[in-house]
């Protein structure tokens, strides 16, 4: 391999990693948290009773919907599991023929609800773990299409950075176990390499399959070439059972849990989603969809039943090879099939990826600081990267900590409470950006990392002492899933505190040019020169 080729790859690695590195960092943090989406959904509604019997919880949800939205056009129910805080349900009201055209549709929160295991709506309005899941690819406060393009471009740059990183890493096997500590740039490089190489299969897989999830948007040409009519494309990707025409005769809807049991038997896996069209009408139809946790291939096979008689009326056609491949890739990306062990492996790999991106961003400044002729007056570009690193790498976790605090502190009766929690995240992050611009870099790192650590320690303590249930109560109740969330938050807090202390103890080494001068001129010589 020629030197110039490796040099060109090195340049590509540096810039493809840096330019959208901050976006990649928040994508990684949110994606890693999203592996515990259901767990966080529960943890952010701590007073909600555990779902011990999902079928019973479903029956409670059905009774609730029969009272709340008896004549709705459709119900949508996410099947509860022992991992979820309850049953997520939403409905579409019958269209009002007298309503003026162009009237805004009802707000989603008026027609959606989370019903706990006892059949009571959960009072704590929060986005919970779903926020991290959506934020991972839709970001926030921007049109979804723009966000997905941004995430798509960032992922492409990530793929380029990974591949060029493999090319420029000269001793990938010889340096496999190498970590030179307290050696400045060398240590940062070793740490960056370790985070990248040790999790390389995951990083390659997650970036590639992440691009595959957006492939229809990023590379629409195959669809355009094969489908003149987009509705036909959607019909072949998401086959539908057709519309249901309301007949106007009331008829009792069958027990949904019976449909689920039958669907599980026929589809050979747990059911994840239930749609009921025209509930309470003689034409009612129930469609059950196989859960994406049922297998590696996540496309939801579906069965439609007559809602009154329970007769099977339709079954989705088996997917073709392309769709199976596509949905298997999404399955590997999201890891929903995973049991607890696999989920932990995904989570740890996500942490590795986050550390890889963060260390790469910091390495950019560490490497250049060594070469600065005057460290007190670095160039503008250096300033921008240094401050953005603090604002994002230290600032975003601070925002997340405040998001959790808002979840605990905001009054339950507050209107639009879930949105307020998210607003807290962004306000705290905004404050972090201001601090990163206003403080000297060393203080910025210290204060934000230390502040996040204190916030997380205090949050776990607050839950334990004031909120109840907290860590101690969960351990006593044997709810290890939620106890582990607190455990992980404590470990993250300890790690951030350790980094904050290391930053505090750190003294900047003089730039290389100064060190070379000091070497070249011994103290005795210096006196002579003076």
């Amino acid at each position, binding site marked *: 391999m020629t030197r110039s080729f490796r040099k060109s790859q090195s340049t590509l690695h540096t810039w493809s990693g840096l330019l959208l590195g901050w976006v990649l960092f928040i994508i990684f943090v949110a994606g890693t948290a999203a592996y515990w989406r259901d767990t966080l959904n529960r943890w952010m509604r701590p007073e909600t009773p555990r779902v011990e019997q999902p079928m019973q919880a479903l029956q409670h949800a059905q009774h609730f919907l029969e009272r709340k939205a008896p004549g709705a056009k459709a119900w949508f129910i996410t099947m509860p599991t022992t991992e979820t805080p309850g049953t997520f349900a939403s409905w579409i009201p019958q269209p009002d023929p007298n309503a003026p055209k162009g009237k805004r549709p009802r707000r989603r929160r008026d027609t959606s609800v989370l019903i706990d295991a006892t059949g009571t709506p959960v009072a704590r309005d929060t986005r919970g773990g779903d926020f991290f899941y959506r934020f991972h690819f839709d970001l926030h406060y921007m049109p979804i299409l723009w966000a997905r393009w941004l995430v798509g471009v960032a992922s492409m740059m990530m793929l380029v950075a990974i591949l060029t990183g493999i090319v420029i890493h000269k001793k990938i096997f010889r340096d496999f*176990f190498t970590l030179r500590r307290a050696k400045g740039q060398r240590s940062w490089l070793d740490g960056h390499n370790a985070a990248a190489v040790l999790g390389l299969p995951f990083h390659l897989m997650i970036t590639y399959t992440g691009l595959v999830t957006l492939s229809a948007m990023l590379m629409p040409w195959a669809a355009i070439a094969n489908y003149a009519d987009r509705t036909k494309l959607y019909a072949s990707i998401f086959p539908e059972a057709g519309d249901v025409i309301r007949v106007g005769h009331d008829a009792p809807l069958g027990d949904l849990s019976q449909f689920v049991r039958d669907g599980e038997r026929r589809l050979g896996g747990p059911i994840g989603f239930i749609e009921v069209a025209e509930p309470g009408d003689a034409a009612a139809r129930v469609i059950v969809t196989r859960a994406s946790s049922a297998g590696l291939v996540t496309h939801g096979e579906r069965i439609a039943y007559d809602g009154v008689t329970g007769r099977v009326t339709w079954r989705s056609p088996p997917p073709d090879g392309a769709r199976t491949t596509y949905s298997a890739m999404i399955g590997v990306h999201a890891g929903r099939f995973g049991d607890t062990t696999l989920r932990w492996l995904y989570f740890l790999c996500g942490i*590795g990826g986050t550390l890889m991106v963060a260390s790469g961003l910091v390495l950019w400044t560490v490497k250049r600081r060594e070469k600065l002729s005057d460290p007190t007056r670095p160039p503008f570009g250096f300033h921008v990267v240094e401050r953005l690193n603090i604002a994002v790498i230290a600032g975003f976790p601070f925002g997340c900590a405040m998001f959790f605090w808002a979840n605990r502190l905001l009054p339950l009766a507050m209107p639009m409470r879930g949105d307020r929690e998210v607003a807290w995240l962004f306000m705290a992050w905004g404050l972090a950006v201001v601090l990163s611009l206003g403080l000297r870099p060393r203080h910025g790192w210290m204060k934000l990392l230390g502040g996040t650590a204190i916030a997380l320690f205090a949050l776990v303590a607050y839950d334990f002492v004031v909120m109840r249930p907290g860590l101690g109560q969960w351990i006593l109740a044997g709810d290890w899933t939620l106890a582990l969330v607190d455990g992980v938050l404590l470990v993250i807090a300890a790690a951030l505190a350790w980094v904050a202390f290391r930053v505090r103890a750190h003294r900047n080494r003089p730039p290389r040019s100064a060190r070379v001068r000091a070497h070249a001129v011994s103290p005795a010589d210096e006196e002579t020169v003076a």
Partner: protein
Amino acid sequence: MTAIVAALCALAAFLLFGFATDRHHELRFGHRLTRRHAGWYRATAWAAIAACLLASIGAWGAVFGPVAWVGLIMAGASASFLLLNLVPEGPARRSNHSASKRSTNNRSGAVIPTGTPVCVPGE
């Protein structure tokens, strides 16, 4: 149980790969590794990786087993990396290592006073 065996195989494999390197072997065992022994370490490590695949398939089945296998390999490599680099070596080993390091740096045995500039190629 099979999952634990798979995880231990992955950890053992990468510890063996680590001990097959001159630096970590000398650091932990206080003596240099012969080429033949290094070969044995590596062969055993590869066997442990294969055993990890079999145990993973046993624990998670033919579809999810390979996914878990790749995950466990990364976890085993990361855990070995941290153990090899962060667990302090014992005092006996440390003195052995520092002695061997001294002998490597200054094979002639001449005493080099501290503070003397040493020319390092490439700097």
